[in-house]
């Protein structure tokens, strides 16, 4: 072969390698799109949004802005522009609210009924009385609790309007974080986002076609980096309610923030935490949040019919260190216990 021909051949090989490399890079971009994580404080809790796909940074930013707006104009009971605040300050009159707020309150009311009032979205005055997050919290007197329990505190939903009984105060703290996950899912569906994971406090949204998201359940008795076990999930929402997150001690007794609507005091079940999982549906977030609270207050036996009715999975962690899983979804629950301080009990 002539030297000149050889030279041409080698330049061809060089060009081919360059083209291959370029293709590889493009392939990489397509199959491993950029991933962006953003963190913010919304609704008094830590919000973490991880988005994968085209325009991921912009999507994450818009998502956080949307959640701020959700708090300020709909969910908050402390901000004057919010639907919940307006309904609470309407002196028993009907108040127009967003369609979502009406729907979320109706779901809360349904679970309130099924839990015989143990779960309720109108415990605002009682949680103010307990004020577990205060600098120096104190257990209120039984008389003051009884006085509040006597007042009618129901909220009725008609179309997109709410009427809060004068003795009640709507507090969507037990469903707001899950509701935020639903709002996020609806927003992501309108974008080019392929995959996203968002956590709003302890409520988690898993979005996308992936079927092996890995979710850690925190050890209720450990520190922030200690885990109890691991869930493997597809698109779904997960919420946990536990007595360890917000509480105070008085006279050797622990007072946590999850109130039982029938006693007006912190729920006394033998549970340390309940994690509820709902497969993807438009209200999976809000339902997982409501159910985790309701299940915590009801205790294991009382919770099972509720989980069955809503087609949810759950992991119950008992104070004594045992764990029970319950599954009412067609696909079943993929939970792996990884902490040797606990044992599975079924």
């Amino acid at each position: 072969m002539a030297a000149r021909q050889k030279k041409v051949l080698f330049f061809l090989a060089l060009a081919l390698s360059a083209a291959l490399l370029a293709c590889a890079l493009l392939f990489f971009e397509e199959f491993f799109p950029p991933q962006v994580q953003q963190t913010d404080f919304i609704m008094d809790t830590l919000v973490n949004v991880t988005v994968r796909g085209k325009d991921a940074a912009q999507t994450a930013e818009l998502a956080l802005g949307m959640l701020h707006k959700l708090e300020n104009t709909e969910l908050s009971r402390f901000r004057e522009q919010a639907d919940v605040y307006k309904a609470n300050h309407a002196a028993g009159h009907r108040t127009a609210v967003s369609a979502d707020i009406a729907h979320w309150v109706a779901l809360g009311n349904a679970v309130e009924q099924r839990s015989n009032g143990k779960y309720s979205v109108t415990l605002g005055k009682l949680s103010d009385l307990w004020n577990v997050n205060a600098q120096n919290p104190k257990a209120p007197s039984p008389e003051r609790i009884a006085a509040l329990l006597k007042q009618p505190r129901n909220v009725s939903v008609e179309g997109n309007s709410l009427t809060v009984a004068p003795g009640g105060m709507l507090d969507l703290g037990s469903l707001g974080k899950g509701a935020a996950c639903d709002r996020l899912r609806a927003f992501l569906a309108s974008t080019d986002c392929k995959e996203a994971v968002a956590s709003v406090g302890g409520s988690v949204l898993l979005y996308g076609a992936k079927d092996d998201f890995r979710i850690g359940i925190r050890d209720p008795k450990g520190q922030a980096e200690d885990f109890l076990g691991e869930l493997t999930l597809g698109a779904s929402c997960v919420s946990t309610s536990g007595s360890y997150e917000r509480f105070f001690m008085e006279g050797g007794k622990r007072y946590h923030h999850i109130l039982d609507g029938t006693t007006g005091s912190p729920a006394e079940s033998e549970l340390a935490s309940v994690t509820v999982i709902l497969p993807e549906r438009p209200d999976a977030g809000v339902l997982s949040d409501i159910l985790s609270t309701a299940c915590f207050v009801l205790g294991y036996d009382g919770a099972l019919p509720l989980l069955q009715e809503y087609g949810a999975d759950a992991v119950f962690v008992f104070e004594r260190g045992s764990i029970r899983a319950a599954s009412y979804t067609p696909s079943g629950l993929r939970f792996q216990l990884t902490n040797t301080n606990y044992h599975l009990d079924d």
Partner: protein
Amino acid sequence: MKFGNKKDVILLITVACLALLLALPALFAGAGRSALVYVDGKEVLRVALQDGMAEQTIPLGTSPALSVHIAEGKISFCDAACPDQICVKSGALFRAGQTAACLPAKAVLVIQGKGSAPFDAITY
């Protein structure tokens, strides 16, 4: 054709080196980890975490007061003036994807960089 010529070998090596050079940034992009501290949604501190780095404590100027402590490639919240101390109990972070937060001071600590985070998310 026959590969044996000195020139051929040199050319091949050149191409290989070129490819490696192009791939290098992608390979090492994740080697460095950084700690990012946000207060009220704004980034107030960004530190590259290295194993042999000098120990230091940096006050964040928040209310209630809060500082971060950096030592041996790890970062933790410390000297928190809040009652619950949840952020301090989060311990020292070093793995990409780990986060800790102080709600009263609205401060968040995030470790960025490539590396395997243990979970996609955590529920609590």
